[in-house]
């Protein structure tokens, strides 16, 4: 049926002031308020049709639960509930998503399709190895690509996220020191600009953390490093490019000093996207580096995971890699799940089974799509886009390190907001009203009021310009005494600013019939 246009106005009439307009039901047009599933009345409902079993569970008498109070929804109700919720999220597919250090790039749907092929998705991790040769071949190929791109001889695939990869790398380092009678080395050096996971990981494995100072131009202070490298140091953890978006110019000297002191060089590979295909960490003297497949190799972030964090390893650390690993022979691929006599130095196991296979498939599809030429282009365009944003904003905001190029992300501080009464947080929230996700803010900690912008290579010139125009307009407004725009932002999001203090003071972590809002 078509909509009849006879007998009704076809032009808008009487456009009047809509500020302060309220709907009668509290609705906001297509953006629906959506209750929790516990408030939708489905306490005896189910959205699946299952046969009644022809045997009861009487043989489990005394072992069965009394009740399971959870609501269900029919399929159409469930679909509507979750689709309505989805509409309250921002996403890469909607706009540039400039979260520095997170590499929010386009997620190709081919990768999703590949991961859902039954030979991968419907494959049991303990299926006989003879029935999983394609999966093992893929893991073997993925390992080959990761090793070639990083110039490293070995890789442990099983870590399930970046921080899990850091843990894996430090456990290799710890095992290597213990094997060499160097178990007394208990200190890990971490620059002040490091991701929080670095010191947290070091502490988690029982190491003491000491900080390395930073130079005024945003790099590791070599003199301070040299001072702190001693017989107690097990490793340094350095992100390169670092969290200020800068390449560590003295990286070769950093690794030389580290090795000379008998320590290992752990590189946080969160920012590998900036150098993939142009620089191999193996050529920089790195001993271990995790690779966030959800950053550089574009497996979806999924609202906070699942990630994947394979760790490439140097010759010195390779013998300590955890089980499992894939070996190939004339008869095909084998999976070593328990360390054998020849590989008795493996430090243990990171997780049940073999790692994030679903992410391996996606990452491998991404690699094949780009090839060696495309991956090099990825790094070049990522760096070009970041420098373009920096150049276009340099006259209205204050770059933290104005001299020289940045790598894949542009870091600004909040000096340009001095005297405006607007903070980095206010500015970030105002970006939401302009249709953009805020950049990473207040990180790295070494820059006051930090704003870290990482556009990634999958942004077009047009989208970059749209983004820069929005930020320029906001910057001018902030300095033009338009403070209210910022202090109360966002105005146009599904919700206004949320009270995080209340959430922490009276933790309400599961649904209860009465709400906080009513109290």
């Amino acid at each position: 049926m078509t909509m009849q246009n006879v007998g009704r106005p076809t032009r808008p009439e009487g456009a009047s002031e809509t500020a302060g307009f309220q709907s009668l039901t509290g609705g906001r047009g297509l953006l629906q308020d959506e209750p929790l599933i516990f408030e939708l009345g489905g306490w005896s409902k189910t959205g699946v049709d299952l046969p009644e079993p022809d045997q009861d569970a009487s043989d489990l008498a005394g072992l069965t639960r009394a009740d399971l109070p959870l609501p269900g929804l029919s399929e159409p109700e469930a679909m509507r509930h979750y689709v309505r919720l989805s509409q309250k999220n921002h996403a890469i597919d909607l706009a540039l998503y400039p979260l520095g250090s997170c590499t929010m790039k386009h997620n190709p749907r081919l990768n999703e399709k590949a991961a859902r092929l039954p030979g991968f998705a419907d494959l049991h991790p303990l299926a006989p190895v003879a029935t999983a040769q394609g999966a093992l071949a893929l893991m073997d190929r993925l390992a080959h690509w990761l090793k070639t791109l990083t110039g490293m001889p070995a890789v442990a695939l099983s870590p399930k996220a970046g921080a899990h990869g850091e843990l894996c790398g430090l456990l290799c380092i710890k095992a290597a020191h213990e094997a060499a009678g160097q178990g007394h080395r208990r200190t890990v050096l971490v620059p002040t600009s490091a991701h929080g996971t670095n010191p947290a990981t070091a502490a988690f494995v029982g190491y003491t953390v000491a900080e390395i100072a930073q130079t005024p131009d945003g790099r590791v202070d070599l003199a301070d490093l040299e001072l702190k490298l001693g017989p107690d140091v097990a490793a340094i953890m350095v992100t390169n490019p670092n969290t200020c978006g800068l390449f560590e110019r003295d990286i070769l000297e950093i690794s030389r000093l580290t090795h000379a002191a008998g320590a290992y060089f752990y590189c946080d590979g969160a920012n590998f996207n900036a150098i993939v295909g142009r620089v191999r960490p193996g050529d920089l003297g790195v001993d271990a580096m995790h690779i966030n497949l959800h950053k550089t190799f574009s497996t979806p972030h999924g609202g906070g995971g699942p990630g994947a964090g394979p760790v490439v390893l140097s010759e010195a650390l390779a013998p300590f890699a955890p089980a499992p690993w894939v070996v190939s022979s004339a008869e095909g691929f084998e999976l070593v799940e328990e360390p054998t006599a020849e590989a008795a130095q493996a430090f243990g196991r990171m997780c049940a089974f073999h790692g994030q296979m679903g992410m391996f498939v996606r990452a491998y599809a991404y690699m094949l799509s780009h090839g060696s030429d495309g991956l090099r282009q990825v790094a070049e365009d990522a760096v070009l886009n970041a420098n373009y944003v920096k150049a276009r904003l340099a006259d209205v905001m204050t770059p933290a390190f104005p001299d020289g190029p940045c790598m894949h992300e542009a870091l600004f501080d909040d000096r340009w907001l001095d005297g405006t009464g607007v903070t980095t947080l206010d500015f970030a929230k105002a970006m939401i009203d302009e249709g953009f996700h805020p950049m990473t803010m207040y990180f790295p900690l070494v820059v006051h009021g930090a704003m870290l912008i990482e556009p990634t290579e999958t942004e077009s010139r047009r989208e970059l310009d749209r983004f820069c125009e929005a930020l320029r307009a906001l910057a001018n407004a902030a300095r033009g005494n338009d403070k209210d725009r910022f202090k109360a932002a966002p105005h146009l999001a599904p919700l206004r600013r949320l009270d995080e203090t209340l959430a922490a003071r009276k933790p309400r972590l599961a649904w209860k019939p009465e709400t906080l809002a009513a109290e």
Partner: protein
Amino acid sequence: MRYLPLTADDRAEMLGVIGAPDVDALFVDVPEAARLSGPVDLPAHAGELEVERELARLSAMNRAAGDGPFFCGAGAYRHHVPATVDHVIQRSEFLTSYTPYQPEIAQGTLQVLFEFQTQVAALTGMDVANASMYDGSTACAEAVMMAQRVTRREKAILSGGLHPHYAAVTQTIAHAEGMEIERLAAAIDAEAAVIDAIDEATACVVVQTPNVFGVVTDVTRIAEAAHARGALLIVVTTEAVSFGLLKSPGEMAADIAVAEGQSIGNALNYGGPYVGLFACREKLVRQMPGRLCGETVDAEGRRGYVLTLSTREQHIRREKATSNICTNSGLCALAFTIHMTLLGGTGLGQLARLNHAKARELKTAVEGAGLEVLTPRFFNEIAVRTRGPAAAAVDAALAHGVVAGVPYSRLDPHAGLDDVLLLCATETTTPEDIAALAAALKAA
């Protein structure tokens, strides 16, 4: 390159705006010696069709669980997942969003996490649950570390019925922290043995039910024994569907419940990504690892959700954090929540009874084939004694087109249980599958 929007003209103009002569000038900080002059030695880019063909070729080299009679469990389970689940998790707003650090534009993800936490707390019978962990095994290791923080004691006792991979992961992490792990000998019905091992130095005991051999245990007595010595009880579950039928860890006085949530909403994926469930008593919440989503209000007093209690976490606490964890298993938790919402308590109960009924059929058939069933009380998995090594029986059955479960020795080669075969049946198992298994085992 179809994923790269910049044209050659764009690049030239942008370099002009930047004031750089060429793109190499942007890499000037890279030491000369470390610059690659050309592409690395890997194939050049490929079109969508070529990539799809290559991935399909590799996929076809595997035998999917659905390709024939199939009986593997032991920590990963084949269940039917409604089509709605996979559709919704592929919506751009869920698939391509980041961790909900900007709650005003992430209420979709946050409300889902709040629903997830509530569902997990109800399933496990606990007060609170976090927003998920990497998987069940890492959740188990984190629970042991948490018990160390809570009790300030240094020893953990692992039951001999704990999945060997879970034990290995826990040992790996605990060893690094200098914690002592006492792993009891693997045995079919091993749970009660942990009681004798508890002493005044014990931080926690870790017991799995149903255990790796499929044995269902009421752990209430173990909880009493642990609490009498000031230790915590951690209950592990690898088959989340069992929550639909069996007494919950909370009902049995567990302090921390961890589980693998893959069974609900998530495919087998050759071992990952999965979703770890982590729940505990309210009084322990500030020692919990991982992300938590909590209810609050916005500036206009409307209900909303935020990530909360982040003062436990690495990005705030750095080296003093409760864990180094920085992600959860967001999309897998979403899949779990949608599937759980479709099921409801009613549907999950029905699904669980169906699984148990299939396993009873399996048991009858295996006994009919002349094999001894070792599991006294089971949910949907049983351990059976094979005539020779279980690994050989699996190979022989495969020649008959049947994937006849998991030899226990594959998980734990040094336990001396080479003739123990782990079998699992779910709602996807048909009577024909079971008949084929019985015939294959009889012939083996």
